[in-house]
């Protein structure tokens, strides 16, 4: 494999165009294990980390811009970002150990397109957008439109994600991401659930977003769970409806990490817990870490 480290987006686009057998990478935390387990090696490795824009984290007036190759530890260590998006920050922080955290990125986590990617449900509930470099500029699409199935994205050859945009949430909003893993660290999520809840003046749910990971070919929002919450108080009944909707929305597989039945049952449990935590954060009740 050959290696280049361009310093501008244009140079990266050019490098990809020059070699049909090229791959971008940021942390390589998925790429290297995949090559070791027999995936064909790319001819050219294009390292995105020397492009300033790809590792910049910027707070704008009404949004944040996050370079796609930014190590996730930068996000979890940013108090402003973590304060506004505790769920997304925690989700990013669950992608592996401290060693992995200093390398893993939202761009890599999304584009590796594992159905179990931890950051994706949290990105979905926050309506995160991906800014994609193309041959002649950029285009912006919702994160939910990037992954198309296990290991595959909608990006064309030669395209890569430059940065993510996420709008600051309205007042009285909280987000959360909770996952089930057999140990306490170092595992791929067996089930992941993200939630974002906005409360109204009466403490009922004004707006709900619920997303599941690891239980379908891609992470996805659960419309029925969201409908069960909208305009409703967050109580045992609505949470039970959320759980039922989440279990029903699953389309999981049996694999070495979990069974279909297990994933469906646990999806319901985690959706409830994520909604509860997001709602508590919206109400200012707790900023406790839901994961551990």
């Amino acid at each position, binding site marked *: 494999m050959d290696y280049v480290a361009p310093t501008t987006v244009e140079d990266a686009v050019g490098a990809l165009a020059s070699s049909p057998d090229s791959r971008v990478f940021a942390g390589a935390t998925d790429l290297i*294990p995949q090559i*070791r*387990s027999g995936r064909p090696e790319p001819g050219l490795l294009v390292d995105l980390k020397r492009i300033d824009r790809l590792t910049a984290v910027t707070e704008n007036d009404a949004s944040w811009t996050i370079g796609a190759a930014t190590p996730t530890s930068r996000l979890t260590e940013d108090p402003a970002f973590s304060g506004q998006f505790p769920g997304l920050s925690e989700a990013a922080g669950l992608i592996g150990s401290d060693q992995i955290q200093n390398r893993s990125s939202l761009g890599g986590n999304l584009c590796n397109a594992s159905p179990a990617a931890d950051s994706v449900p949290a990105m979905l509930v926050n309506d995160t957008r991906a800014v994609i470099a193309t041959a002649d500029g950029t285009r912006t699409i919702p994160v939910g439109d990037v992954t198309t199935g296990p290991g595959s994205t909608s990006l064309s050859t030669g395209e890569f994600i430059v940065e993510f945009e996420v709008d600051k949430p309205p007042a009285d909003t909280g987000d959360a991401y909770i996952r*089930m893993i*057999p*140990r*306490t*660290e*170092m*595992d*791929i999520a*067996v089930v992941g659930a993200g939630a974002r809840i906005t409360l109204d003046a009466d403490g009922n749910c004004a707006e709900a977003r619920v997303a599941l990971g690891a239980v379908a070919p891609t992470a996805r929002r659960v419309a029925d769970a969201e409908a069960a919450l909208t305009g409703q108080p967050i109580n045992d009944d609505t949470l039970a409806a959320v759980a039922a909707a989440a279990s029903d929305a699953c389309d999981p597989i049996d694999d*070495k*990490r*979990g*069974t279909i*039945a*297990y994933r469906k*049952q*646990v999806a319901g*449990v985690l959706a409830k817990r994520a909604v509860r935590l997001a709602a508590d954060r919206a109400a200012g009740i707790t900023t406790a870490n839901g994961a*551990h």
Partner: protein
Amino acid sequence: MTMTEDPKNAPSYKWVGSRSIRPDGLDKVTGKARFGADLKLPNMLEGAVTRSPHAHARIVSIDTSAAEAMPGVHAVITAADLPDLAEAGAKTDDVFMSAKVLARDKVLWEGHPVAAVAATSREQARAAADAIDVVYETLPHVLTVDEALADGAPVLHDTMITKGADPVPEHASNAASRALHERGELDKGFADADLVLEREYTTKPVHQGYIEPHACVADAGQDGRAELFVSSQGHFSMRAMTATTLGWEPSQLNVTPAEIGGGFGGKTTIYLEPLAVRLSTKAGRPVRLVMDRGEVFKATGPTSGSRMKIKMGVTNDGQITAAEVWMAFEAGAFPGSPVGAAAMTAIACYDIPNFVVEGFDVVCNKPKVAAYRAPGAPIIAYGIESIIDELAKGIEMDPIDLRLKNAAVEGTQASYGPQFPRIGFVETLEAIRDSEHYKSPVPEGCGRGMASGFWFNIGGNSTATVHINEDGNVNVITGSPDIGGSRASMALFAAEEFGIDVDRVSANIADTQTIGFNDVTGGSRVTLATGSVVIDCCRAIKEDLRRRAAKTWDCEVDDVEWVDGQAQHASGTETPLSLADLAAKAPRTGGPISVTKSNNVRGAGAGFTTQLVDVEVDDELGVCRVVRYTTAQDAGKAIHPSYVEGQMQGGVVQGIGWAFNEEYIHRPDGTLDNPSFLDYRIPVASDLPMIETIVVEVPNPNHPYGVRGVGEAGIVPPMAAIANAIDDAVDCRLVDLPMSPVRLLDAINQRGE
């Protein structure tokens, strides 16, 4: 904490029992210590192995021509490059060992080596190994004891007639052998019981999980000899096995043990070594051969999966009257599971008058199992200690009291034959019963469980040399690879015996040319056996030093005493002579001061442990976490308490992993689905609390310092202790390992119905 029997009369030592810095520690914390893959020799080639992708297949042909033509390739070998031991009339075990190292006619598991390459870089070697063209004819395979024993199952070895079966079978099968222990009358025993329970248990293969993959460097000369630098638990036995496989005499090989990055039994056998030596002879250059993690999982020796059926009866007042045990253990591709040891340890903790314990060694298309810390005992203990817990609940007796009532003690005829000398099982039960942990209330939302375990420990052959340097400092040289901290104990023994500061002792491990024979580091034997021989050397040297002092003072030897590191004249009229003084005079008093001793040491003391665990279960997810763990283990005498505690804690945590998540997951086609640390899940630091240790000291009467082996017993109880705690927490009795979240949630769901 330490609980010593009869503390008032226990001997007090200056060095033994202290927490010295281990001799190899500095090199290990600075990265200087050399492990098997860390040696770089001039002109060294890198090796790679071609392995079977199939679980069971006939090798039709192997074409190495493409590989041989590739750039940088200096040697390619197949079984044709090793002697055909079957043709040479060798023992069946040796034929199997050779076939395991390099397949001859058949491949018997995914990962079975078929060829190996040496080339100038790792990438070139790997590319060449992948270019070797092997034509296979796949055969049906069997993966579990159930499949292997089923009627009409494909048979792995067509001459395998079950040894020990009665009547002798007419046809070959996959049951290699049968072990049987019997006593009394089973039917009468069950008739005498008030409560009889029957349960069936299954376990999966688990791996020792050492962090260092297998690695060696072989350097063959044109004189038919070779040097081998290898991460190994026993370089003498490795030398013998490698020589047999190569058709060499052992003395043609000199084996130097590298520092070893974990073994736990898995590095007591050979995989890469004959391949590396043969590649080196063929290439005429040194060859380094290292496994990657995938190869470690696929092609080394996990321990057995199993099926066990246990029936046990107890009277209402807590007398266990009868036990019936049937076990079948997976051996992997060749015979040799630890079912025999399991049959011996199964009920060894208890004095049960009527029993039948029967165990079958069953081959199947998986890697040949290797020893794993108290081999066989943890597997059967899962069943025995679980059923005893259920019996205790059934008669409403405290589980510790039930065990105390039936405990083996000094004089009990062990279930496996000999009479127990002084043992400390009862003391470990009492230590737990009297512990702060046991006396504390079970935390809210948690469950509590306990279990006990036993391991024989062995003695065996050791050789050691001790010299006194010109400056009076001491060298201790042994041939036992240090896998747990034994060099520290050897230094402490010497310091204690001579009465000198342990910093004046260096403890080293020599190669096969520079020290006499030593058995493997295994069976928890080193502190006992190698320690005994070191002590013998020190005592012989002290005799010699007294003679040299007597010569110097021109007096009788009986007038000379050795006290606090010095020769002293009994009358006090002479200035004492230190080790340094006597070393300086050595040329005039008899020459250099050095002694070598060997022995086949007997008198190993059996090791017992009792453990207590609190667990917390998230009953919506089936996730179980250990909240508190206390282990009490009889060490006889803790020579270096920190490393005794370390052995206890390490064994417990391996058991915790075995209980919760560790298992080999095979696809239906016989390939391994989880050959990585990502999906072969060993415990991580955040999974665990501190592991509280109670070192019980009931001295072994047959060792000068009372030592009992401690390396192994600790792994025996945790799975059952956790099963018992889960039952206490959520009223679910799990009988299949691992007790993973999927299984636990399933049990919780079914409990509700």
